[in-house]
């Protein structure tokens, strides 16, 4: 019995050590000050941006469009969800870290849907603060442990825009963005959320008149 307890304790310690280890090839270091990581989508001006969205929730599969614009007369970002044929489904306004639903088509009006989209928008547009950092010099990449509104996430990116990617991973959500020609607007975003939801966004160029 005693030997069994010892084995159990040793296993626990081993699991604890593995769990607390730094990611492979990373050297942990403390930051002298808090650093702000940009949101996944950042708006340099008031040019509207369009993404094609592919959403899988459980066995259901939807597609549509998401349009964003930072309004020139305020710091608010407005977001419109619509179908490919142009039917407006939902509208949100995002300001000071909070997304507010301003319109929802009656057929899909449910508190759970609105709350879900609220948290999706916040994931895309929220700034993150870095608490700790660890550098991976061999790949010229940096990994950061970021403090988010709820829990922590890991952010990875390189300064070279062509290879830039941001991965934020919390307990329930994971968001990954890849950038190519624009350091603020990713070409592709992959999001995994609760209820086995997978969202893929793809930037569409020259969509606005």
């Amino acid at each position: 019995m005693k030997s069994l307890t010892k084995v159990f304790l040793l296993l626990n310690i081993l699991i604890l050590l593995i769990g607390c280890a730094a990611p492979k090839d990373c050297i942990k270091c403390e930051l002298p000050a808090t650093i702000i990581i940009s949101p996944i989508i950042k708006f340099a001006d008031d040019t509207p941006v369009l993404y094609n969205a592919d959403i899988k929730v459980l066995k259901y599969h939807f597609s549509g469009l998401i349009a964003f614009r930072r309004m020139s007369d305020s710091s608010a970002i407005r977001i419109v969800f619509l179908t490919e044929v142009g039917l407006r489904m939902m509208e949100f306004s995002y300001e000071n870290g909070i997304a507010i639903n301003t319109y929802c088509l009656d057929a899909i009006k449910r508190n759970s849907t609105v709350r879900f989209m609220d948290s999706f928008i916040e994931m895309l547009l929220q700034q993150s603060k870095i608490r700790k950092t660890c550098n991976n010099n061999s790949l010229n990449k940096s990994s950061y442990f970021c403090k988010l509104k709820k829990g922590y996430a890991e952010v990875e990116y390189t300064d070279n825009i062509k290879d830039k990617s941001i991965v934020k991973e919390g307990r329930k959500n994971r968001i990954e963005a890849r950038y190519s020609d624009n350091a603020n607007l990713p070409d592709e975003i992959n999001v995994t959320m609760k209820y086995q939801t997978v969202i893929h966004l793809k930037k569409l160029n020259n969509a606005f008149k």
Partner: protein
Amino acid sequence: MKRICCVLIAFFTFSAIAFNQPAGFTPVKSASDFSSKMKDYASKLTCIKSNFVQEKHLQYLDAALESEGKFWYKTPNKVRWEYTKPYKYILVLNNGKLKMISESSKTELDMKGNAIFEQVNNIMIASVSGNILDNKDYGIQVFENTRFYLILMKPTSQAISTLISQMELYVDKNSYSVTKIKMIESGSDYSEISFSNLIINEEFDEGLFTP
């Protein structure tokens, strides 16, 4: 006193007509002539192939989204909208079934179980085929200018009016084909679909409606 009343009634009647009248258009002179020619066009129509440009005006963003593609119609109830720019998307209406194909998904719906879809389907088909004037689900007014007839349609059904507050169909005066559709939503958003390179009654592969 009677004179003043008459003048006031005439003024308000004129104002009401003037406010409903779209800019650059006057009420059609011969409604029966227009109606019979429109019905004649609809009865002879078998199929349409066309390009289209869709402009979606999003008031909330103060921006207009532009997409384009190809359109096919075959009587009595087959329609295919194929968006090619800036995204790929296909919408097919075929004998009461709606099929939507995006780059990554395929969805099929039976419109018989969905009153709104069925009504939208009916109005889409009626709009492009020109078979619209007898539609009892809409209040209809017809105007004209030198190039177009303009059919203004206001839905009378509650189900449709939550989605569309008004539709405007622009009919070419020479060919009687519908060249532009404007759908005004219940807010201030609207979509404009302009057709170009219209080919009327030239057969094409029916497989397009069974993707």
